[in-house]
Protein backbone atom coordinates (compact mmCIF):
# COMPACT_ATOMS: atom_id res chain seq x y z
CA UNK A 1 0.00 0.00 0.00
CA UNK A 2 1.24 3.51 -0.81
CA UNK A 3 2.25 5.50 2.24
CA UNK A 4 0.20 8.68 2.62
CA UNK A 5 3.26 10.37 4.07
CA UNK A 6 6.87 9.29 4.09
CA UNK A 7 9.45 11.42 5.87
CA UNK A 8 13.13 10.47 5.66
CA UNK A 9 15.87 11.99 7.81
CA UNK A 10 14.17 15.35 8.00
CA UNK A 11 16.31 18.08 9.50
CA UNK A 12 15.68 21.73 10.16
CA UNK A 13 18.12 24.25 11.51
CA UNK A 14 16.84 27.81 11.80
CA UNK A 15 18.99 30.85 11.04
CA UNK A 16 19.51 31.44 14.77
CA UNK A 17 21.16 28.01 15.04
CA UNK A 18 18.24 26.24 16.71
CA UNK A 19 17.96 22.65 15.46
CA UNK A 20 14.22 22.04 15.47
CA UNK A 21 14.40 18.66 13.74
CA UNK A 22 17.36 16.30 14.08
CA UNK A 23 16.71 13.73 11.37
CA UNK A 24 13.20 12.43 11.92
CA UNK A 25 11.80 9.58 9.83
CA UNK A 26 8.16 8.58 9.78
CA UNK A 27 5.70 6.72 7.63
CA UNK A 28 1.94 7.16 7.79
CA UNK A 29 -0.12 4.58 5.94
CA UNK A 30 -3.06 5.42 3.72
CA UNK A 31 -6.31 5.59 5.68
CA UNK A 32 -4.57 5.87 9.04
CA UNK A 33 -5.60 8.15 11.88
CA UNK A 34 -2.18 9.11 13.17
CA UNK A 35 -1.25 11.16 16.23
CA UNK A 36 1.89 13.25 16.26
CA UNK A 37 2.58 14.18 19.84
CA UNK A 38 5.18 16.27 21.53
CA UNK A 39 5.65 19.09 23.98
CA UNK A 40 5.66 22.71 22.87
CA UNK A 41 8.82 23.28 20.85
CA UNK A 42 9.37 19.56 20.25
CA UNK A 43 9.36 20.06 16.47
CA UNK A 44 5.82 19.01 15.49
CA UNK A 45 4.78 22.29 13.91
CA UNK A 46 8.13 22.61 12.14
CA UNK A 47 7.63 19.16 10.64
CA UNK A 48 4.10 20.11 9.54
CA UNK A 49 5.42 23.40 8.18
CA UNK A 50 7.93 21.54 6.02
CA UNK A 51 5.34 19.03 4.80
CA UNK A 52 3.02 21.87 3.82
CA UNK A 53 5.75 24.01 2.18
CA UNK A 54 5.60 26.80 4.74
CA UNK A 55 9.06 26.08 6.14
CA UNK A 56 12.23 25.36 4.18
CA UNK A 57 13.92 22.15 5.28
CA UNK A 58 17.65 21.83 5.88
CA UNK A 59 17.89 18.19 4.82
CA UNK A 60 15.78 15.11 4.20
CA UNK A 61 12.97 13.98 1.95
CA UNK A 62 9.20 14.21 2.17
CA UNK A 63 6.82 12.22 -0.03
CA UNK A 64 3.06 12.67 0.00
CA UNK A 65 1.39 9.70 -1.69
CA UNK A 66 4.75 9.07 -3.40
CA UNK A 67 4.96 12.63 -4.73
CA UNK A 68 8.22 14.29 -3.71
CA UNK A 69 7.38 17.75 -2.32
CA UNK A 70 10.50 19.16 -4.00
CA UNK A 71 10.01 17.59 -7.40
CA UNK A 72 6.25 17.03 -7.85
CA UNK A 73 5.14 19.84 -5.57
CA UNK A 74 1.86 20.69 -7.38
CA UNK A 75 0.71 17.06 -7.16
CA UNK A 76 1.99 16.68 -3.59
CA UNK A 77 0.14 19.83 -2.50
CA UNK A 78 -3.06 18.74 -4.21
CA UNK A 79 -3.15 15.62 -1.98
CA UNK A 80 -2.70 17.64 1.19
CA UNK A 81 -5.03 19.70 3.38
CA UNK A 82 -3.69 21.54 6.42
CA UNK A 83 -5.44 23.03 9.42
CA UNK A 84 -2.73 25.09 11.13
CA UNK A 85 -2.34 25.67 14.82
CA UNK A 86 -2.74 29.43 14.62
CA UNK A 87 -5.74 31.15 13.06
CA UNK A 88 -4.63 32.27 9.62
CA UNK A 89 -7.89 33.39 8.08
CA UNK A 90 -8.40 36.49 6.03
CA UNK A 91 -10.57 38.00 8.73
CA UNK A 92 -12.25 40.69 6.63
CA UNK A 93 -13.69 38.14 4.23
CA UNK A 94 -16.80 36.06 4.81
CA UNK A 95 -16.59 32.28 5.45
CA UNK A 96 -18.14 31.65 2.04
CA UNK A 97 -15.55 33.83 0.28
CA UNK A 98 -12.73 32.15 2.17
CA UNK A 99 -13.69 28.59 1.29
CA UNK A 100 -14.66 29.33 -2.32
CA UNK A 101 -11.38 31.20 -2.85
CA UNK A 102 -9.44 28.34 -1.33
CA UNK A 103 -11.01 25.95 -3.83
CA UNK A 104 -10.06 28.39 -6.58
CA UNK A 105 -6.40 28.19 -5.56
CA UNK A 106 -6.62 24.48 -6.41
CA UNK A 107 -8.20 25.21 -9.80
CA UNK A 108 -11.76 24.30 -8.78
CA UNK A 109 -14.28 26.49 -10.61
CA UNK A 110 -16.71 28.64 -8.64
CA UNK A 111 -19.83 26.59 -9.41
CA UNK A 112 -18.32 23.40 -8.05
CA UNK A 113 -16.67 25.33 -5.22
CA UNK A 114 -20.02 26.78 -4.14
CA UNK A 115 -21.54 23.29 -3.94
CA UNK A 116 -18.59 22.04 -1.87
CA UNK A 117 -18.76 25.14 0.31
CA UNK A 118 -22.39 24.45 1.17
CA UNK A 119 -21.54 20.83 1.98
CA UNK A 120 -18.64 21.54 4.33
CA UNK A 121 -19.95 24.73 5.91
CA UNK A 122 -23.22 22.92 6.66
CA UNK A 123 -21.44 19.88 8.10
CA UNK A 124 -19.38 22.12 10.34
CA UNK A 125 -22.35 24.23 11.41
CA UNK A 126 -21.26 27.40 9.65
CA UNK A 127 -23.67 27.70 6.73
CA UNK A 128 -25.88 30.19 8.61
CA UNK A 129 -22.78 32.32 9.17
CA UNK A 130 -21.55 32.19 5.60
CA UNK A 131 -22.11 35.90 4.92
CA UNK A 132 -20.80 37.15 8.28
CA UNK A 133 -17.41 38.83 8.49
CA UNK A 134 -14.95 36.19 9.74
CA UNK A 135 -13.45 38.59 12.26
CA UNK A 136 -16.75 38.48 14.16
CA UNK A 137 -16.88 34.68 14.45
CA UNK A 138 -16.08 32.95 17.74
CA UNK A 139 -12.78 31.11 18.20
CA UNK A 140 -14.48 27.73 17.80
CA UNK A 141 -16.17 28.86 14.59
CA UNK A 142 -12.88 30.09 13.18
CA UNK A 143 -11.30 26.71 13.91
CA UNK A 144 -14.17 24.91 12.18
CA UNK A 145 -13.88 27.30 9.26
CA UNK A 146 -10.21 26.37 8.91
CA UNK A 147 -11.24 22.71 8.75
CA UNK A 148 -13.85 23.47 6.08
CA UNK A 149 -11.26 25.45 4.13
CA UNK A 150 -8.75 22.60 4.28
CA UNK A 151 -11.33 20.16 2.93
CA UNK A 152 -12.48 22.23 -0.04
CA UNK A 153 -10.18 20.51 -2.52
CA UNK A 154 -11.00 17.11 -0.97
CA UNK A 155 -7.45 16.18 0.04
CA UNK A 156 -6.43 12.56 0.60
CA UNK A 157 -4.24 13.55 3.55
CA UNK A 158 -5.46 16.00 6.17
CA UNK A 159 -3.10 17.39 8.80
CA UNK A 160 -4.74 18.93 11.85
CA UNK A 161 -2.35 20.88 14.05
CA UNK A 162 -4.12 21.21 17.39
CA UNK A 163 -7.55 21.76 15.82
CA UNK A 164 -9.43 21.75 19.11
CA UNK A 165 -7.18 24.13 21.04
CA UNK A 166 -9.33 26.57 22.98
CA UNK A 167 -12.56 24.96 21.86
CA UNK A 168 -15.25 24.07 24.42
CA UNK A 169 -15.90 20.40 25.12
CA UNK A 170 -19.23 20.25 23.26
CA UNK A 171 -17.76 21.60 20.02
CA UNK A 172 -14.63 19.53 20.55
CA UNK A 173 -16.69 16.35 20.66
CA UNK A 174 -18.63 17.32 17.54
CA UNK A 175 -15.31 18.02 15.81
CA UNK A 176 -14.03 14.57 16.85
CA UNK A 177 -17.11 12.98 15.31
CA UNK A 178 -16.70 14.96 12.12
CA UNK A 179 -13.00 14.16 11.80
CA UNK A 180 -13.67 10.47 12.50
CA UNK A 181 -16.28 10.42 9.73
CA UNK A 182 -13.84 12.01 7.30
CA UNK A 183 -11.30 9.32 8.23
CA UNK A 184 -13.86 6.52 7.79
CA UNK A 185 -14.57 7.87 4.32
CA UNK A 186 -10.93 7.26 3.41
CA UNK A 187 -9.04 10.45 4.24
CA UNK A 188 -5.77 9.85 6.06
CA UNK A 189 -5.55 12.05 9.13
CA UNK A 190 -2.53 13.28 11.05
CA UNK A 191 -3.44 14.96 14.30
CA UNK A 192 -1.32 16.89 16.74
CA UNK A 193 -2.93 17.72 20.03
CA UNK A 194 -2.23 18.55 23.65
CA UNK A 195 -5.41 16.73 24.69
CA UNK A 196 -3.97 13.25 24.95
CA UNK A 197 -7.36 11.63 25.52
CA UNK A 198 -8.14 12.96 22.04
CA UNK A 199 -5.22 11.02 20.59
CA UNK A 200 -6.02 7.93 22.68
CA UNK A 201 -9.65 7.89 21.58
CA UNK A 202 -9.21 8.76 17.92
CA UNK A 203 -5.84 7.62 16.67
CA UNK A 204 -4.71 4.15 15.66
CA UNK A 205 -1.00 4.99 15.51
CA UNK A 206 1.15 7.41 17.45
CA UNK A 207 4.54 9.03 17.09
CA UNK A 208 6.07 11.07 19.86
CA UNK A 209 8.57 13.77 18.96
CA UNK A 210 10.85 15.16 21.60
CA UNK A 211 13.63 17.68 21.09
CA UNK A 212 13.56 17.18 17.35
CA UNK A 213 13.70 13.38 17.43
CA UNK A 214 11.10 10.65 17.17
CA UNK A 215 11.23 8.86 20.52
CA UNK A 216 8.29 6.52 19.87
CA UNK A 217 6.45 5.40 16.75
CA UNK A 218 3.98 2.58 17.17
CA UNK A 219 0.29 1.71 17.35
CA UNK A 220 -1.74 3.34 20.11
CA UNK A 221 -2.62 -0.13 21.44
CA UNK A 222 1.02 -1.22 21.69
CA UNK A 223 1.99 2.03 23.27
CA UNK A 224 -0.72 1.76 25.88
CA UNK A 225 0.32 -1.83 26.58
CA UNK A 226 3.65 -0.41 27.74
CA UNK A 227 1.88 1.37 30.51
CA UNK A 228 2.75 -0.53 33.67
CA UNK A 229 1.32 1.83 36.23
CA UNK A 230 -1.99 3.54 36.96
CA UNK A 231 -2.77 6.33 39.39
CA UNK A 232 -6.29 6.29 40.84
CA UNK A 233 -7.98 9.02 42.82
CA UNK A 234 -10.39 7.73 45.49
CA UNK A 235 -13.06 9.96 47.06
CA UNK A 236 -13.96 8.64 50.51
CA UNK A 237 -17.35 8.39 52.22
CA UNK A 238 -15.88 9.44 55.57
CA UNK A 239 -12.79 11.48 56.29
CA UNK A 240 -9.59 9.89 57.61
CA UNK A 241 -6.86 11.60 59.60
CA UNK A 242 -3.95 9.48 58.40
CA UNK A 243 -3.26 6.53 56.14
CA UNK A 244 -2.73 3.05 57.50
CA UNK A 245 0.30 1.08 56.30
CA UNK A 246 -0.84 -0.53 53.04
CA UNK A 247 1.04 -3.54 51.59
CA UNK A 248 0.59 -2.76 47.89
CA UNK A 249 1.21 0.43 45.86
CA UNK A 250 2.18 3.97 46.81
CA UNK A 251 -0.53 5.76 48.80
CA UNK A 252 -0.93 9.48 49.37
CA UNK A 253 -3.50 11.34 51.43
CA UNK A 254 -4.45 14.34 49.30
CA UNK A 255 -6.97 15.64 51.86
CA UNK A 256 -9.06 13.95 54.57
CA UNK A 257 -11.61 12.67 52.03
CA UNK A 258 -9.33 11.98 49.08
CA UNK A 259 -6.58 9.41 48.52
CA UNK A 260 -4.30 8.83 45.55
CA UNK A 261 -2.89 5.37 44.90
CA UNK A 262 -0.20 4.46 42.39
CA UNK A 263 -0.23 0.75 41.52
CA UNK A 264 1.33 -1.55 38.99
CA UNK A 265 -0.72 -3.66 36.56
CA UNK A 266 0.06 -6.89 38.45
CA UNK A 267 -1.25 -5.47 41.71
CA UNK A 268 -4.65 -4.68 40.13
CA UNK A 269 -7.70 -2.85 41.44
CA UNK A 270 -8.97 -5.80 43.48
CA UNK A 271 -5.89 -5.60 45.67
CA UNK A 272 -6.63 -1.95 46.47
CA UNK A 273 -10.17 -2.67 47.57
CA UNK A 274 -9.05 -5.65 49.66
CA UNK A 275 -6.71 -3.40 51.61
CA UNK A 276 -9.30 -0.62 51.90
CA UNK A 277 -11.86 -3.12 53.27
CA UNK A 278 -9.35 -4.49 55.75
CA UNK A 279 -8.88 -0.94 57.07
CA UNK A 280 -12.64 -0.19 56.93
CA UNK A 281 -12.22 2.70 54.52
CA UNK A 282 -15.27 3.15 52.28
CA UNK A 283 -14.91 4.64 48.83
CA UNK A 284 -17.60 6.85 47.29
CA UNK A 285 -16.10 7.17 43.79
CA UNK A 286 -12.92 6.39 41.87
CA UNK A 287 -11.26 7.86 38.75
CA UNK A 288 -7.97 7.83 36.87
CA UNK A 289 -5.71 10.75 37.77
CA UNK A 290 -4.53 11.07 34.20
CA UNK A 291 -5.13 9.00 31.13
CA UNK A 292 -2.64 6.29 30.33
CA UNK A 293 -1.25 7.92 27.22
CA UNK A 294 -0.63 11.13 29.10
CA UNK A 295 1.40 9.27 31.72
CA UNK A 296 3.41 7.44 29.07
CA UNK A 297 3.97 10.66 27.17
CA UNK A 298 5.30 12.37 30.27
CA UNK A 299 7.49 9.37 31.11
CA UNK A 300 8.98 9.25 27.61
CA UNK A 301 9.62 12.91 27.16
CA UNK A 302 10.99 13.29 30.69
CA UNK A 303 13.33 10.32 30.21
CA UNK A 304 14.63 11.94 27.04
CA UNK A 305 15.26 15.21 28.85
CA UNK A 306 17.12 13.44 31.64
CA UNK A 307 19.23 11.46 29.16
CA UNK A 308 20.22 14.55 27.20
CA UNK A 309 20.85 16.69 30.27
Amino acid at each position, binding site marked *: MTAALRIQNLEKEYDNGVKALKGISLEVQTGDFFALLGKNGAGKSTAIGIISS*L*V*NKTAGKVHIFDYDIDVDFPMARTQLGVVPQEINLSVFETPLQIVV*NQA*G*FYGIDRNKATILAEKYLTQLGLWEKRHDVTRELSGGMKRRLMIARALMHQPKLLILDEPTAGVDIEIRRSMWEFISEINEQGTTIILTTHYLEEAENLCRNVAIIDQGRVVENTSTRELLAKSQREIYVLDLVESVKSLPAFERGKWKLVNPTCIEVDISKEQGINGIFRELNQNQIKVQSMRNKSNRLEQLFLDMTTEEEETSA
Partner: protein
Amino acid sequence: MNWQQIWVAYMTIVRKEVTRFTRIWQQTLLPPVITTSLYFVIFGSLIGPRIGSMEGYRYMDFIVPGLILMSVITSAYANVSSSFFGSKFQRSIEELQISPTPNSVILLGYVTGGMARGLLVGLVVTIVAIFFSRLSVHNVFVMLSISMLTALLFAMGGFLNGLFARKFDDVSIVPNFILTPLTYLGGVFYSIQLLPDFWQAVSHLNPILYMINGFRYGFLGISDIPLGISYLIILLFIAALFTINLRLLNKGYGIRS
Protein backbone atom coordinates in the same frame (compact mmCIF):
# COMPACT_ATOMS: atom_id res chain seq x y z
CA MET B 1 -2.35 21.95 -12.63
CA ASN B 2 -3.53 22.24 -16.21
CA TRP B 3 -4.02 25.60 -17.95
CA GLN B 4 -7.70 25.77 -17.11
CA GLN B 5 -6.97 25.23 -13.41
CA ILE B 6 -4.20 27.80 -13.52
CA TRP B 7 -6.63 30.29 -15.08
CA VAL B 8 -9.15 29.59 -12.29
CA ALA B 9 -6.45 30.14 -9.66
CA TYR B 10 -5.33 33.39 -11.33
CA MET B 11 -8.87 34.73 -11.58
CA THR B 12 -9.51 33.78 -7.95
CA ILE B 13 -6.60 35.92 -6.80
CA VAL B 14 -7.66 38.80 -9.06
CA ARG B 15 -11.29 38.61 -7.87
CA LYS B 16 -10.14 38.45 -4.25
CA GLU B 17 -7.99 41.56 -4.77
CA VAL B 18 -10.66 43.54 -6.61
CA THR B 19 -13.25 42.59 -3.97
CA ARG B 20 -10.83 43.78 -1.29
CA PHE B 21 -10.19 47.24 -2.68
CA THR B 22 -13.79 47.86 -3.74
CA ARG B 23 -15.04 46.80 -0.28
CA ILE B 24 -12.92 49.55 1.29
CA TRP B 25 -13.45 52.11 -1.51
CA GLN B 26 -13.46 54.95 1.01
CA GLN B 27 -9.80 54.15 1.70
CA THR B 28 -8.69 53.02 -1.74
CA LEU B 29 -10.63 54.91 -4.41
CA LEU B 30 -11.85 58.14 -2.84
CA PRO B 31 -8.67 59.69 -1.34
CA PRO B 32 -6.67 59.88 -4.61
CA VAL B 33 -9.67 61.42 -6.36
CA ILE B 34 -10.00 64.10 -3.67
CA THR B 35 -6.25 64.77 -3.60
CA THR B 36 -6.02 65.10 -7.37
CA SER B 37 -9.11 67.32 -7.47
CA LEU B 38 -7.34 69.65 -5.03
CA TYR B 39 -4.33 69.74 -7.36
CA PHE B 40 -6.68 70.66 -10.21
CA VAL B 41 -8.26 73.46 -8.19
CA ILE B 42 -5.05 74.86 -6.69
CA PHE B 43 -2.48 74.41 -9.46
CA GLY B 44 -4.87 74.51 -12.36
CA SER B 45 -7.61 76.99 -11.61
CA LEU B 46 -6.00 79.27 -9.00
CA ILE B 47 -2.26 79.36 -9.71
CA GLY B 48 -2.30 78.02 -13.28
CA PRO B 49 -3.61 81.19 -15.04
CA ARG B 50 -0.77 83.20 -13.44
CA ILE B 51 1.83 80.76 -14.79
CA GLY B 52 0.57 81.05 -18.35
CA SER B 53 1.28 78.39 -20.96
CA MET B 54 3.67 75.45 -20.87
CA GLU B 55 5.02 74.19 -24.21
CA GLY B 56 2.11 75.87 -25.94
CA TYR B 57 -0.63 74.43 -23.68
CA ARG B 58 -2.58 75.97 -20.82
CA TYR B 59 -0.81 75.03 -17.58
CA MET B 60 -3.90 73.16 -16.41
CA ASP B 61 -4.00 71.08 -19.59
CA PHE B 62 -0.25 70.43 -19.33
CA ILE B 63 -0.37 68.99 -15.79
CA VAL B 64 -3.50 66.83 -16.22
CA PRO B 65 -1.73 63.78 -17.76
CA GLY B 66 0.95 63.82 -15.05
CA LEU B 67 -1.63 64.06 -12.29
CA ILE B 68 -3.64 61.18 -13.74
CA LEU B 69 -0.55 59.01 -14.03
CA MET B 70 0.57 59.99 -10.54
CA SER B 71 -2.69 58.64 -9.13
CA VAL B 72 -2.29 55.45 -11.19
CA ILE B 73 1.25 54.96 -9.86
CA THR B 74 0.46 55.49 -6.18
CA SER B 75 -2.72 53.42 -6.25
CA ALA B 76 -1.24 50.45 -8.11
CA TYR B 77 1.77 50.43 -5.80
CA ALA B 78 -0.17 50.87 -2.57
CA ASN B 79 -2.71 48.20 -3.45
CA VAL B 80 -0.21 45.41 -3.89
CA SER B 81 2.18 46.39 -1.10
CA SER B 82 -0.56 46.74 1.52
CA SER B 83 -2.59 43.76 0.38
CA PHE B 84 0.36 41.40 0.20
CA PHE B 85 1.79 42.59 3.48
CA GLY B 86 -1.69 42.31 5.04
CA SER B 87 -1.85 38.68 3.90
CA LYS B 88 1.57 38.06 5.43
CA PHE B 89 0.56 39.79 8.65
CA GLN B 90 -2.65 37.76 8.99
CA ARG B 91 -0.81 34.70 7.69
CA SER B 92 -3.63 34.15 5.21
CA ILE B 93 -0.91 34.06 2.54
CA GLU B 94 -0.43 30.48 3.75
CA GLU B 95 -3.68 29.61 1.93
CA LEU B 96 -1.82 30.25 -1.30
CA GLN B 97 1.53 28.90 -0.21
CA ILE B 98 0.20 25.43 0.55
CA SER B 99 -1.81 25.32 -2.69
CA PRO B 100 -0.43 24.09 -6.01
CA THR B 101 -0.81 27.57 -7.56
CA PRO B 102 2.54 28.41 -9.23
CA ASN B 103 4.42 31.38 -7.80
CA SER B 104 4.28 33.16 -11.16
CA VAL B 105 0.48 33.02 -11.01
CA ILE B 106 0.45 34.33 -7.44
CA LEU B 107 2.64 37.24 -8.57
CA LEU B 108 0.53 37.99 -11.64
CA GLY B 109 -2.70 37.70 -9.67
CA TYR B 110 -1.64 40.27 -7.09
CA VAL B 111 -0.16 42.53 -9.74
CA THR B 112 -3.33 42.42 -11.83
CA GLY B 113 -5.30 43.43 -8.74
CA GLY B 114 -2.97 46.40 -8.28
CA MET B 115 -3.30 47.35 -11.94
CA ALA B 116 -7.07 47.18 -11.67
CA ARG B 117 -7.09 49.63 -8.77
CA GLY B 118 -4.53 51.93 -10.39
CA LEU B 119 -6.42 52.07 -13.67
CA LEU B 120 -9.80 52.48 -11.98
CA VAL B 121 -8.48 55.41 -9.94
CA GLY B 122 -6.89 56.81 -13.12
CA LEU B 123 -10.24 56.57 -14.91
CA VAL B 124 -12.10 58.36 -12.13
CA VAL B 125 -9.44 61.09 -11.95
CA THR B 126 -9.67 61.49 -15.75
CA ILE B 127 -13.43 61.97 -15.47
CA VAL B 128 -12.89 64.60 -12.76
CA ALA B 129 -10.24 66.27 -14.95
CA ILE B 130 -12.81 66.77 -17.69
CA PHE B 131 -14.54 69.31 -15.44
CA PHE B 132 -11.35 71.32 -14.96
CA SER B 133 -9.56 71.14 -18.30
CA ARG B 134 -9.94 70.89 -22.05
CA LEU B 135 -8.96 67.26 -22.15
CA SER B 136 -8.10 65.92 -25.58
CA VAL B 137 -6.52 62.64 -26.64
CA HIS B 138 -3.74 62.74 -29.22
CA ASN B 139 -3.06 59.00 -29.41
CA VAL B 140 -5.39 56.67 -27.52
CA PHE B 141 -3.14 53.62 -27.99
CA VAL B 142 -0.16 55.37 -26.42
CA MET B 143 -2.29 56.74 -23.60
CA LEU B 144 -3.77 53.35 -22.76
CA SER B 145 -0.60 51.29 -23.20
CA ILE B 146 1.59 53.65 -21.15
CA SER B 147 -0.97 53.80 -18.35
CA MET B 148 -1.34 49.99 -18.28
CA LEU B 149 2.40 49.35 -18.41
CA THR B 150 3.04 51.95 -15.71
CA ALA B 151 0.37 50.41 -13.50
CA LEU B 152 1.96 47.00 -14.10
CA LEU B 153 5.42 48.30 -13.25
CA PHE B 154 4.38 49.93 -9.99
CA ALA B 155 2.21 47.00 -8.99
CA MET B 156 5.36 44.88 -9.35
CA GLY B 157 7.21 47.44 -7.21
CA GLY B 158 4.47 47.22 -4.59
CA PHE B 159 4.80 43.43 -4.56
CA LEU B 160 8.53 43.72 -3.91
CA ASN B 161 7.82 46.13 -1.07
CA GLY B 162 5.24 43.69 0.33
CA LEU B 163 7.76 40.85 0.25
CA PHE B 164 10.39 42.85 2.12
CA ALA B 165 8.03 44.53 4.59
CA ARG B 166 8.21 43.17 8.14
CA LYS B 167 5.98 45.80 9.79
CA PHE B 168 3.33 48.28 8.69
CA ASP B 169 5.83 51.17 8.63
CA ASP B 170 7.83 49.36 5.94
CA VAL B 171 4.85 49.59 3.59
CA SER B 172 4.74 53.40 3.75
CA ILE B 173 8.49 54.18 3.68
CA VAL B 174 8.99 53.67 -0.07
CA PRO B 175 5.89 55.63 -1.20
CA ASN B 176 6.65 58.53 1.16
CA PHE B 177 10.39 58.85 0.73
CA ILE B 178 11.06 57.53 -2.77
CA LEU B 179 7.94 57.33 -4.89
CA THR B 180 6.40 60.74 -4.12
CA PRO B 181 9.64 62.74 -4.61
CA LEU B 182 10.43 60.88 -7.84
CA THR B 183 6.91 61.53 -9.13
CA TYR B 184 7.02 65.24 -8.31
CA LEU B 185 10.46 65.52 -9.88
CA GLY B 186 9.42 63.45 -12.87
CA GLY B 187 7.86 66.34 -14.76
CA VAL B 188 4.27 66.23 -13.51
CA PHE B 189 4.17 69.99 -12.97
CA TYR B 190 6.81 71.22 -15.42
CA SER B 191 8.72 70.43 -18.58
CA ILE B 192 12.33 69.45 -17.92
CA GLN B 193 13.24 71.88 -20.72
CA LEU B 194 12.82 74.58 -18.07
CA LEU B 195 15.66 73.11 -15.99
CA PRO B 196 19.38 73.92 -16.32
CA ASP B 197 21.39 71.34 -18.31
CA PHE B 198 22.78 69.65 -15.23
CA TRP B 199 19.35 69.09 -13.65
CA GLN B 200 17.96 68.00 -17.01
CA ALA B 201 20.64 65.28 -17.08
CA VAL B 202 19.83 64.30 -13.48
CA SER B 203 16.14 64.13 -14.34
CA HIS B 204 16.89 61.54 -16.99
CA LEU B 205 17.91 59.16 -14.18
CA ASN B 206 14.35 59.29 -12.88
CA PRO B 207 12.34 56.44 -14.47
CA ILE B 208 9.03 58.15 -13.74
CA LEU B 209 10.03 60.97 -16.14
CA TYR B 210 9.79 58.52 -19.05
CA MET B 211 6.33 57.34 -18.05
CA ILE B 212 4.87 60.78 -17.49
CA ASN B 213 6.24 62.05 -20.78
CA GLY B 214 5.00 59.02 -22.65
CA PHE B 215 1.57 59.42 -21.11
CA ARG B 216 1.54 63.16 -21.83
CA TYR B 217 2.31 62.36 -25.46
CA GLY B 218 -0.82 60.22 -25.55
CA PHE B 219 -2.91 63.23 -24.49
CA LEU B 220 -1.13 66.28 -25.91
CA GLY B 221 1.26 64.92 -28.52
CA ILE B 222 4.28 66.48 -26.78
CA SER B 223 7.08 64.83 -24.83
CA ASP B 224 10.53 65.71 -23.50
CA ILE B 225 11.61 62.11 -24.20
CA PRO B 226 11.42 60.07 -27.44
CA LEU B 227 8.44 57.73 -27.17
CA GLY B 228 10.45 54.61 -28.00
CA ILE B 229 12.82 55.32 -25.10
CA SER B 230 9.84 55.65 -22.75
CA TYR B 231 8.51 52.23 -23.76
CA LEU B 232 11.97 50.67 -23.55
CA ILE B 233 12.64 51.97 -20.03
CA ILE B 234 9.21 50.88 -18.78
CA LEU B 235 9.56 47.38 -20.27
CA LEU B 236 13.07 46.97 -18.87
CA PHE B 237 11.90 47.84 -15.37
CA ILE B 238 8.93 45.49 -15.67
CA ALA B 239 11.16 42.62 -16.77
CA ALA B 240 13.65 43.30 -13.96
CA LEU B 241 11.00 43.55 -11.26
CA PHE B 242 9.17 40.44 -12.51
CA THR B 243 12.41 38.44 -12.37
CA ILE B 244 13.39 39.69 -8.92
CA ASN B 245 9.92 39.12 -7.47
CA LEU B 246 9.66 35.62 -8.88
CA ARG B 247 13.10 34.62 -7.61
CA LEU B 248 12.31 35.92 -4.14
CA LEU B 249 8.96 34.14 -4.15
CA ASN B 250 10.59 30.88 -5.22
CA LYS B 251 13.08 31.24 -2.38
CA GLY B 252 10.22 32.02 -0.03
CA TYR B 253 11.80 35.33 0.96
CA GLY B 254 9.72 37.00 3.66
CA ILE B 255 7.08 34.29 3.65
CA ARG B 256 8.88 31.06 4.56
CA SER B 257 11.15 30.42 7.52
